[in-house]
Each structure stands twice: as C-alpha cells, then as structure tokens.
C-alpha cells in the first residue's frame, strides 16, 4: 500500500476523522448542537468528497477496497442518507433525558461501516464493515435506556445478528476452503471454471447471512420487533442505509460470480423474492402499528428489488440503483414524519393516533401521504418510476413469474398504504384535544429534511431521466 492509495479513501478517512474528533470533544465538552453540527458537516463533507474521488475511479486500493463508480455512487447515497438521519435525529434526541452526544458517534460509525461494505471487493473488508455497522446498530437500537421495548429490540437484534453472522462466516469459510480465495474476482474465476464443490453450500450459507440483514423471508421475523423498539430515526437508518449497503454488496458479488449460470441459485433467490413480496405485504395487511406496517413494507420492497437483481443486463443495475435511491428517499421520509410527530409521551404508534392528521397538521400529513403513495407506486412519485424500471428489467429478462408476483402483491400492498391515508383524512375525533408538539429546538432541521425529501420524491417522479443519466455514467465503469 502506497501513500497515494490513501487519497481515493478520502470519504472513509474523513468519516473516521470526525468520529475521533467527536469522541475527543465529548470527553471534554458536552454540547448537543456542536456534536450534531459536526456530524452533519462531516457527512456532507464526505458526500462532497466522493465527487472529488471520482477522478481516481476505478482504483483498487490493496485487495480489500475498490473505489469505482459503483462504490462512489453508493457511498454518496449512504452519506446523504446518514445526513438526513442526523437532521431527523436532532429534535428526537432533544426529547430524551439521557446524554445525546454518543448517539452521533455511533451513527457515524454505522455510516462508516456501510461505506466500507459498498466499497469492499474482498470478504475480509466486507465482514469488517458489516461488524462496524452491526455493533454500532446494537447500541443505537437500544439507545433509549428507559424504554424497555428499546432494550428488548437491541437484545433481539444482537442475538439474531450474531446467529446470522455465524452462518455468514461459515459460508465464507466454506468458499475459502473450496477456492482458496477471499477476493471476489479470484473467487469468480475459480467458480467460473466449472468446478462444483463446497462453494455451493458456502454460497447458500452466505445467502442466509445476507438475507437476515436484508430481512428477506424467511429470515425476516426480527424486523417488526426491532423496527418498533428502535428510536424512529434509527429505524429509518436500519431500513435504508443498513439494507442498501448490504444489497449493493450482494449485487456486486453475485454479478461477479454470475448467478445466472447456476439454476438452483436462481431458484433460491426466486423463492426468497416471492416469499418476501407476499410475506411482507400480507403481514402488513391489517397491522395497526404504523412502524410495523413500514417494517413489513420494507420486507416486500426488497422482494421487488430481488426481481431486478435476478434480471440480467445493464437495465438490471440501473433499475436496482434507481429503486434503491427512490426507496431511500421514501422510507426516510416516512420514518421522518413519525419521528417529527413524536412527543414527550413517546411516538404515535397506533394507527388511531393518525386520525385526522391531515387536518390538524396538514404539512406532516401531506408529506406522509406522499411517501405512502410512493411506497405504493402511484405515478408522479419516485416509487412509481422505481417499480416501473424494476418491472421493465424483469420483463426484459423474461422473468414473467416474478413480474406477475410483483403485480399481485402490489395490489395487496395498496390496501394498507391507502388505509393509513384514509385514516389521516378522516374526521378529527370528537375528544381530540390540541396538545401540540413539545417545544424543543430542531424542528427546523427535521422540517428541512422532510421538505428536501418530498421535493426529491416529486422530482424523481416527474424527471427521472436526470438520475438515470447519473446512474448510467457511474455504472458504466463496472457493469
């Protein structure tokens, strides 16, 4: 490794630097605003620095990290999402009685882990990144120590993530035993030589580990419990950054190894995709807890995404990337509204507490409605265009069965999204008393984040080609 190799790693190094800086500052001087501002600035800086790094791409830094258009795109996405989570968290944390500052250190570490994952070209760096992400998430999920649900969620995630990591590690070990490599390119070479051995069960166990992180059926059962218990901005982080990074890695690995040559592997993913679409949507159907609805919804969305993953060709990469961006915007927006609505007495969790929201808080109600419509895939939102591209990719690769499943399960999904919207529009209950949200600072930050997300949502819905062009440009170097 040469000194000049450090420069392409600038975004990652920047985040690590801010982590250390924050730790030092907290040790000497506790100030919520300062830490939050520093975190936000660091994430923005990292996001901007990805543009600078683009001139180095593609560049292999040691065997572990590759900086190409693909990883830069996802890094930027991860940092931007981390920034939005920071904005949404500020007000939420003001409501906590505990110390707030460490939260940001953990959040930065989670973002750091995710960015390592999307840039890794080697199982060692992947696992390293994954553990940085997971360990910070254990603490973040249980951050509110006074909330028994939070503690429960944290412990559940800890135990199950450890279990799934065991599967993942065992899978990697089997692949290594078979091929003698941990490097993706080398593994792809040996797998491509027609050799059949331990690599097959190894890949199977790898899928179990990844499936857990992506909460795909049947590895999904933890999702609603953890999403419900975690602080809402962290739920947004779990649903977007953590999942998106792992998916980006999965796409990179399986594109290299070329799953299309292995019919039984395709079959496994098809079964998982169909089970996730239907499982997620059916579980959400009559659910009265809004955070759980969104948890199930995110399961279904990754089922849709697997269709594009299984499709081949450049349209598949475009479709996945577009879908992920649209999904990030939407799910962060939806959890953002819930976070913005939470007061001293906790979060509005049951559907009934959203009754008449559109009349009492038209702005927040409108944003949530827009996000739900996008999740349902209604035209003029980002979600529609994303789903359109996913289906186009599926049709292009003749995955008729999967496309039919998307269509059917989307109809089921429409029901529970519209149910929430109809509740928001219904009459304000008689006994409603205007309590008002607690008066803490940071409303402006959350408002800014939600406004930007909504604008993005509509912009991507009516002018998708702008993002498509960016994706084409970034992906041309690797796909």
């Amino acid at each position, binding site marked *: 490794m040469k000194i000049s190799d450090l420069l392409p790693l600038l975004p990652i190094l920047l985040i690590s630097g801010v982590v250390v800086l924050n730790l030092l500052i907290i040790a000497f001087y506790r100030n919520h605003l300062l830490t939050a501002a520093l975190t936000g600035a660091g994430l923005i800086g990292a996001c901007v620095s990805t543009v600078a790094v683009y001139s180095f791409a593609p560049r292999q830094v040691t065997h572990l990290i590759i900086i190409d258009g693909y990883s830069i795109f996802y890094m930027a996405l991860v940092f931007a999402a981390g920034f939005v989570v920071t904005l949404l968290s500020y007000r939420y944390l003001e409501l906590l009685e505990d110390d707030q500052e460490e939260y940001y250190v953990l959040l930065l570490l989670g973002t750091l882990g995710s960015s390592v994952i999307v840039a890794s070209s080697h199982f060692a760096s992947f696992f390293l990144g994954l553990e940085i992400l997971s360990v910070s998430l254990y603490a973040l999920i249980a951050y509110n120590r006074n909330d028994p649900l939070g503690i429960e969620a944290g412990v559940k995630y800890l135990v199950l993530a450890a279990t799934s990591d065991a*599967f993942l590690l065992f899978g990697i070990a089997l692949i290594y035993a078979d091929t003698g490599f941990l490097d993706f390119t080398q593994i792809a070479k040996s797998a491509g030589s027609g050799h059949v051995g331990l690599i097959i069960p190894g890949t199977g*166990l790898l899928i*179990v580990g990844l499936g857990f992180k992506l909460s795909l059926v049947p590895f999904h*059962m933890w999702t609603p419990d953890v999403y419900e218990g975690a602080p809402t901005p962290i739920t947004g982080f779990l649903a977007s950054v953590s999942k998106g990074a792992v998916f980006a890695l999965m796409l990179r690995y399986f594109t290299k190894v070329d799953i299309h040559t292995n019919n*039984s592997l395709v079959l496994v993913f098809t079964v998982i995709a169909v089970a996730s679409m239907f499982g997620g949507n*059916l579980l959400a159907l009559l659910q009265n807890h809004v955070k759980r609805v969104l948890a199930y919804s995110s399961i279904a969305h990754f089922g849709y995404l697997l269709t594009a993953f299984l499709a081949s060709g450049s349209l598949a990469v475009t479709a996945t990337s577009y879908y992920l961006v649209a999904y990030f915007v939407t799910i962060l927006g939806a959890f953002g509204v819930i976070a913005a609505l939470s007061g001293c007495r906790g979060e509005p969790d049951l559907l009934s507490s959203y009754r008449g929201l559109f009349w009492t808080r038209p702005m927040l109600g409108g944003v949530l409605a827009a996000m739900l419509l996008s999740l349902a895939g209604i035209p003029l939102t980002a979600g529609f265009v994303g789903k359109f591209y996913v289906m186009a990719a599926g049709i292009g690769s003749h995955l008729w069965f999967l496309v039919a499943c998307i269509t059917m399960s989307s109809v089921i999904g429409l029901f529970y999204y519209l149910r929430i919207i109809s509740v928001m529009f219904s009459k304000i209950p008689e006994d409603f008393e205007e309590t008002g949200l607690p008066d803490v600072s940071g409303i402006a930050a959350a408002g800014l984040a939600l406004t930007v997300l909504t604008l993005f949502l509509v912009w991507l819905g009516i002018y998708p*080609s702008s993002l498509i062009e960016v994706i084409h440009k970034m992906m041309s170097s690797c796909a």
Partner: protein
Amino acid sequence: MLDLLWLIPALPILGFLILALAGSRLSRKVQSCVGVGSVGFAAVLSSAISISFIVFPPPHYQYDQTLWNWISIGNFSPTIGFHLDALSVCMILVVTVVGFLIHLYSVEYMADDEGFSRFFAYMNLFVASMLVLTLADNLLLLYLGWEGVGLCSFLLIGFWYKEPDNIKAATKAFVITRIGDTSMAIGLFLLFNELGTLQIQELSVRAAQQWVVGSTTPMIAAALLLGGALGKSAQLPLQTWLPDAMAGPTPVSALIHAATMVTAGVYLIARMNVLFTLAPMVQSAVAIIGLATLLLAGFSALAQNDIKRVLAYSTISQVGYMFLGLGVGAWSAAIFHFVTHACFKALLFLAAGSIILASGHEQNMFKLGGVRSKLPVTFWTFLIGASSLASIPLVTDGFYSKDMILWQVWSSPTGGFWLWLGGVFGALLTSLYAFRMVFTACFGPAKTQLKHRSSNIIHIPLIILAILSIVVGFVELPHNIGNFHLFSDFLNSALPSFQADKIDTNNELALEIIAGISCFLGILISYVFYFKRPEYPERFFGGCVSQKIHSLWQSGWGFDWIYDSVFVRPFVRITRLNRNDFIDSFYALVSFVTTSLHKGLSLTQTGRLRQYALGISIGAVLVLLILVWL
C-alpha cells in the same frame, strides 16, 4: 423570446401552488393578486411570444421546446415538450387573454365568497391545464392537459358543493365526458400501437406515409378520437352535461364552458387534421354531427327561461358550427369561429353574470328586465355580444367567422347545399334566441330589483371584450368585401388550406345576403314576439301540441330522459337483480384469502427470540436443500 415558452403554463401552475398550499394564510388582496397576476403575466408573455413568432417566424413556422424526457422505455419515450405553431399561437392567446379578463372579473364577482382562494386556485389550475393541452407536442401530454381541464371543470361546477344539485351536475359532467375520454384513450393506444409514436408531428408524417385514404385503421382511430372530442365539446350525443354545468359560478361558465374547454374537441380535430383527412367518412360524420347539434341546440335555446341555460345551448350550437366547418375541411374557418366565439360568448356570460349579480341571483330572464336603464354598461356590452352571436352583417366579428364557415361549407367538395341550408337555418335560430334574450332580459320594466353595484373591475373586462367582439372580425374579410386574409394566411402554416372546387364571387355575395336576411329575420321575429307583442307567444303557441314541443325543446330534446330509460334504469335494474352481488363474491373471496393468510402469518410473529432463531435455521436448511439436492 420563444425559449420562454415553458413559462406560459408554468406561471398559472405557480399561482395554483401558492394558492393551494398557502392560500388560506394570505389576505384577500394577495390572493387576488396571485390568482389574477399569474394569468395576467401569462397573457403578457404569450402576447409577446406571439408577436415575436409573427415578426420573426422560426423556420417552417414551427418552434419546438423539449424540456425533458419523462420516461424512456424501448421506443416509448414521451417528452415533456411544447410545440408552437400558428394554431397553438391562436389558442394560447385566447386562453390567456380571455382567461385573464375573466379572472379579473371574478375578483369582484366572487368577492363575498368564502371559497375565494379555492376558486382562484382551481381557475389557475384550469388555465395551466388548458395551456398544456394546447401546447403539448405529444398526445400523452395533451391527454394530461385534457384530463386536467376535465378535473377543474368538475371541481368548479361543484364549486358550491353544499348544494346537492351542484354536485349532481358536476358528477354528470364528469361521467359523460369520461365516456368520450375513454374512447380517446383507446384511440391513443391504437395510434401508438400502429405508428409507434405519440409525437404529434411525427405521427402525422407516419400516418400519411403508412395509410391510404379511406382505409380501416385510420378510420377507427379518427372515430375514437372523435369520441373524445364529442364528449369534451358537448356535441351529439354527449351534449347533455353542458346545460347542467351552468350550476357553477358564472365566470366558470364563461371561461370553461364557453370560451376555452368546450372547444378542446375542435382543437383536437384541427391538430389531428392529417388523420381526419385520411378518414373521409369520419370527417363527414363530424360535419353531420355538427349540423345536427347546432340545429337541435338552437331549438332548445329558444325554449329556455334561464338566461345561463340559453347561453349554454347557444354554446353547444356555436361549437356545432365549428364542427361543421372542420367536417368540410374549413380548418381555418373553424378556428376563426373559435376565436370570435371565445370573445363574444365570454362577453355574454360575463354580462349575464353582472345582471345576475345585480338582481340578487335571479336567472329567469322573464323575471328580469330594465337592464337598459339601470345597468347601461352591462346593457350595451350585452347587446354587442348578442349582435355578434346573431352575427349582424359587417359590424360584428361573429358575422365574419360564421360567414366564412357557411361560404366554405357551400363551396367545399364534401359540403354542399344541404349542409349550407342547415347552417343558414341555424343562423336564423341563433339571432332569434339571441334577441329573445335581449328583449326579455334588458327591456321593459324591471321585474326584479336591480342593485347597481357593478364596479369598474366588472366593467373593464366587459368593455375590452366588447371591443374585441367587434374588431377581431376584421383580421379576415371575405373575397368580395375587402378580400383580406391575414388570419387564414397565418393559420395556413399549420393547417391545410381550404380546397374549394369552385370559387365564384357572385354566389358569395348572394350567400352573404341570404345569411344577412336570415339574421335580420330572426331579430324581427323576436322583436315582434318578445317586445312589441309579448302576448303573441302565448296566443300562437298556447295549443296542446306546441306546448308539448316547447317542453320537448326545453328539456333539450329529451336526451336526459332517453339516456335515463336506455342506460340508467336498466342498469339499476340489473344491479338490483344482482343485489347479493355474486360478482363481488369473487373479490370477497380474495379479501377472505388475504386476511386469513395475514392472520396465519401473524401467528409466526410471536415476539419470542428462540422462535425467530428457529425461523432462520429452517430457512438455512431450506436454502441448502434447494442448492445441494436440486
């Protein structure tokens, strides 16, 4: 200059967004500034763009502005793009200028209404949609505007939504135009399937190359598009919604249901002229439908008592003239009549609105009267509008446009004597009902107290429109009077010029004289019957048969009754047979299956960690089984 084209629809959209999002927090003054100002700026801008278009014409008299590609899949890549040519120049000028005057008028008309900002938000949205419709360079974007104006029409007819009757009228308008819209949508699918594009220019070129005149496919496509045009423009057999649409505020009737939206069908046919030329049978059907509509609506207008319903039937009838023109290939004449009609009909509606406002919402013209002395400005402008509608020769713009249509109907190879005769008879009816309205509503003693409250804000639009109703006619003069063809020469860059099989100016003069006589005859009859001898109608038409005919005309030839008995009641009967809804049981089954699956799956969400871990293990076993054994 031309590259500012996108701003024209963007300004009213901006106005709509401001009023919709923040309207209730603004003061009345700001609301009206935003509402009127957005359309006002659009009017200024479109005038400037039109001038620049005429003075410095772009190559081929066409200017295309592609903003972006909405989506791109295979060969389907509809753009968000605008196309400016002579036809769309005319359209945007009328929409923005007349629209602006009506918006200005509404500030006073709606001053006491609690839904003030909602009203202007809808109106701005309407203007924006109408501009998108006229400027769209592809049929998909045009369809967006088409549906947008339909939505605004629905919202504004039912603007006073607390009256159940208004909601019914709005629903009726929406449902009936929907029949046409569905037909149009199918037409678009067919065109895309056959020609592989929805870009209007490209589509016209390909259609002309690929299809021969009179073959089946263009015929079906044109007929389907015609369906859409009939619904939107309230022509037979989809005309029944327009008289009821008068339930909306009067400025709405002026803007949407007279000047602009109802002529969208005319625009569509003119825009797709290549397709209609390829389908001569459908084009003849356009002429015949136009003629039938203009006659039936003319008779119905004669029997109405409500001043706004007279104007509504008159609109149907005048749009019928435009269809008649389109049907015989008199493209420019039809568009010319659209322009003049927009001016004088908007004027008539606004003047009627001023009377209605002054009389405390009395719309029955037999209970009005005395407008001449009490509201002089309103009276004179109303008179000018009515004269133009009746097309009094030489001095009104209605004369020049209607004469142009009639003359071209006469001399067109697909027209001829009978169509012309119908048109002339229609002109007689027109002047009859126009002056029946003038004599009963404006002359004589005031039967309802008229409060003079019309302020300048109401008068300015009336006066400007009255001036327009006279001078606009002089941009196009017949061969024997002036022989001045500014308008049709301009339009010929966008529309095919009129192909006559015989031009003889002797005949033309004779035809003009006949048309003039029919106009004065109508005025004379109404003078005798409704001014000189008001007892005559009762005496001559008091008999049983004439009473029946009168009520038939008044109900618009009983179309509502026919549709009610042919479609609505049988449908209700069928649904009653199906009271237990055996079709729905299928859907009930779907919902039963999904909810049971939901309940079943929910059982797995126990919250117990060990079972979750078990789930992961079972999943792992399944994955390995599939991978290793299959």
